C-alpha cells in the first residue's frame, strides 16, 4: 500500500503540494488528474523519491520513502512525462545500464523479453537518437517495467502519441490490472475512466476529489442535477 501523509512541497515561493493525504491500495490502478501545474508530477516524483517532501512523508508498505529511498526505489518503475533518454546508447545498452542499477540479475533474456513487450525487439541495436517520439515512449516504458516492479508510476504515458501507440500502452497497463499497483497521471478522462479503479483530482496542490470514476461523476451529477461525463466532472472540480 502507498500512503501520502500530510505531504507538502514548496519550490521557492510556490507551494506545489499542500498537505496531501492519500492512500493507494495494492493492486489497484490509481489515476491522478488535474490541470497543468496542479502538482501531479510533483506528487509522483515524490513517490519514487526523485523529490523529497518539505513536510509530511510518503510510505510504501509502511516504509518511509525518504528514509529508505534506495530500498523503496527497487520496488518502483517510473515512466516520466518526458522520456529523458541517453541518446547515444542503443536500446539494448540503455536497458542494460538501467538493469544493472536496479538489479544485477537482469540479463539479456529479460531485456529481450521487455523489448518484445514494447515492440522494439527489431530495433534493439539502434541508437535511441534515431527513434521516433512513439518509440522513445516505448523504450522509456520498457525501462520502467524492466525490473518487474510491483509498483508502476506512469506520468502522462500517452501524451502526444498517435492512437496506435497510445492504445498499445493502454492495453499494456490494463493487462497489469490486479497484478501491479499502477499510479497513472493523465489529462485524458476517457483513459482514466477505462483504466482506473480509483482516481484523485488535484487542483492547486490539493486533492479536491477522490473516488472511483463512476463515483466522481455521480457526485457532480447530483450537485448539478444532470448527468455529466468525467470530463465535465473534472472541469467542475478544478474550476
Amino acid at each position, binding site marked *: 500500500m502507498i500512503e501520502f501523509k500530510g505531504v507538502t512541497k514548496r519550490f521557492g515561493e510556490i507551494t506545489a503540494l499542500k498537505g496531501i493525504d492519500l492512500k493507494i491500495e495494492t493492486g489497484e490502478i490509481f489515476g491522478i488528474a488535474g490541470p497543468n501545474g496542479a502538482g501531479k508530477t510533483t506528487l509522483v516524483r515524490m513517490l519514487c523519491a526523485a523529490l523529497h517532501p518539505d513536510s509530511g512523508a510518503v510510505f510504501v508498505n509502511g516504509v518511509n520513502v525518504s528514509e529508505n529511498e534506495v530500498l523503496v526505489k527497487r520496488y518502483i518503475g517510473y515512466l516520466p512525462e518526458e522520456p529523458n*533518454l541517453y541518446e547515444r546508447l542503443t536500446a539494448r545498452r540503455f536497458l542494460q545500464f538501467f538493469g544493472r542499477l536496479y538489479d544485477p540479475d537482469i540479463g539479456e533474456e529479460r531485456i529481450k523479453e521487455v523489448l518484445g513487450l514494447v515492440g522494439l525487439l527489431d530495433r534493439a541495436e539502434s541508437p535511441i537518437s534515431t527513434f521516433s517520439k512513439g518509440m522513445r515512449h516505448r523504450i522509456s516504458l520498457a*525501462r520502467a517495467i524492466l525490473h518487474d516492479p510491483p509498483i508502476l508510476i506512469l506520468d502522462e504515458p500517452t501524451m502526444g502519441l498517435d492512437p496506435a501507440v497510445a492504445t498499445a500502452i493502454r492495453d499494456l497497463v490494463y493487462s497489469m490490472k490486479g497484478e501491479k499497483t499502477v499510479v497513472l497521471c493523465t489529462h485524458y478522462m476517457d483513459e482514466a475512466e477505462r483504466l482506473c479503479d480509483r482516481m484523485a483530482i488535484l487542483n492547486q496542490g490539493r486533492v479536491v476529489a477522490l473516488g472511483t470514476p463512476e463515483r466522481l461523476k455521480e457526485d457532480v451529477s447530483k450537485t448539478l442535477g444532470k448527468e455529466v461525463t468525467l470530463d465535465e466532472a473534472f472541469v467542475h472540480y478544478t474550476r
Partner: protein
Amino acid sequence: MRPLSITRGERALQTLFKEEITSVISNKRYMLSLILQLLLLFAILPVFGSFLSTGRISITTPALNEFIPLGVVDESSSSAYLRRALEANTKLETVYLDRYDESALKSGKVAGILIIPRDYDESLNKVLVVRLITYGPGIKEGAVYDALYPSVAEASAMLTEKRKEAFGVSIEDPVKIEKRFLSPVVVTEGGSRFSGFFLSYLVPLMLFFPIFMVGSIILDSVVGEREKKTVESLLAAPIKRSWLVYSKFLSASFFVLLQLLLWLAVFNLYGVPLHNQGLIIAIVMIIDSAIIATALLLAFYSRTVKEANIALMLLYTVVFVSLIVSLSIRYFDRGLLATPFTIVSSLVVGDRTGLLFWPAALLIYTGLVLAINVRFVERDDIIFGPRPTVQRLLEDLALWLFSTGRAGYIYLTLVFGAFAIVYSTVLEAALGISVVFAFGVTNLLIPLFAFVEEAVKPAGLYFLARRRRLKRGEALLLGALSGFMFFALESAVFAFATYYLFPSRLLDILRMRIAVTLPIHVAGSAIVGYGVAERRYFAAAVLAATAVHTLFNLAVTGGVL
C-alpha cells in the same frame, strides 16, 4: 515482494562510474583532442629538450630568448678563443669579475660564475677545464649550462683547428666544463643536460594541462544531464544521490589520471629525467581533485551549460594564473615559499620540501567541497529548480548547523568563522583598492579593515537571526565563538607564513597573538553578537567593536605592540 538489500549499492556506483567513462570515450571530440594533445607533446618535446644536443646539434631552449647573467672570473693568461665565443653568445650577459664572489651568486645577480683557472692556457695542446659554479640544481642551473655550452663547444672547435695547424694533431673537444654547486644537493646527469627552465617550469606546467581538458567532461556530465533531464530517471533509480557526485568525480579524476600517465610516459620515452614520479602523480592528482570538486560544485549550481561555461572559465583563469605566477616566481626567485604548484616543480628536480602542508590542506578542502556537492544534489531545488540564492544556501546551512544539537553552536561558529576569513579578505582587498584609488590615502584603511572584520565575523548569527529570535546570552556566546574561530584561522595563516619567512619568530608571534589579538577578536564579535540579539543596539555594537579594533590596529602599525 522479494526481499531486497542495499548491499548492491557498490555495484550500482560501479555501473554509474562505467557509464560516465563510456560516455566520455564515445565522445569523439574529446578523444580526438586527447590524441592531438599527445601528438603535440611528441612534437614539442624535442624543441624544448636540450637532451637532443650532443654538441653537434644546436640546442633550442626557451633560454634562447633570455639574457642569462653569467659572472666570469678569468685567472688565465691565454683564453682569447673562449672569451670571443662568450662575447658572441647572445644568450649570455657576461659580467667579468675580478675575483670569485659567492654573494653575487647567492643574491641572484648572476645565475652562475664561470672560472677560467690559471692553468687554462690555449697555447698548450692539452685538455682545458673551466669551472661553472651555480647555486644548486633544479632552477636556473640547467639553463646556464645550456646557454654556456655552445660557447665552450665553439671555443673547443676553434682550438682543435688551431692545434691541428700548429701541432698536426689535436684531441677532440679539448675544453671541458666542470660543474660545482654551492648547494650540497647533487644534481643528476640528466639535470645537467636539460634546461632548468624546461624541468622546473615547463614540465610542471604541462603536467597540469589535463585538468584544463576535463572541464568539458564535467559540464556535459552535470549540466548536460540536467538539461536533457536524464537526471530524473537516475534519481528514480535505486541509487543514493551522493553516488551521482562520486561517479562524476571519479570519472573526471580517472581521465585526468589517464592523461597524466600518458604524459609522463612520453616524458620517460624521451628520457626526461623526472625525479619522484610516484609523488608527482600523487600531488598532481591531489591538486587536480580539488579543482575537479570545485568545478563540479560550480556545474551543479549553474542553471545552464552557458552559465556553467562562464563559471568554469573563471575557475580555470584563477587556476591558470596561480599556476603561471607560482611557477614563474619559483623559477626566477627560488626564495618563495611553496604553493601547491611549486611543490610539483620542486619534485621534478628532486626537491621534496613543502610536501606536508599543501597536500593535507587540499585533501581536506576536496573532502569538504565534495560534501557540499553531496548536500547540493540532495536539494531538490538544485536539481529541479528554482535555484536557491547563495544567501538562501547560507541561511539553510546556518539553520542546519544550529539544529545539530548543542554542538551546533560550535559547528556554526567554525563554518562561518572560516567563511569570514574569505569574505573579509575579499572585501578588504576590494574596498582597500577602491579607497586608495579614490582618496589616495592609506590611513583610512585601518578603521575600514577593522569595520569589515567586525561586521563579517558573526555572519552566521545574521542568518540565524533571520529565522529565529536569539537570546542575548546565546548571541553573546556565539559572537565570541565566531571571533575565536576567526582568530584561530587567521593565526594559522600567520603561523604558516612566519614558519616559512622567520621561523625563529614563530613562538613570539603566536604568544603575541594569543595575548593581544585573541581578546580583541573575541570581545569585538561578542559585542556585535549582542547587537544582533538587541537590534536597537546593533549599529552601536558594530561601531564599538570597530573602535576597539581600530585602536588595536593603530597600536600595531604604530609599533606600540
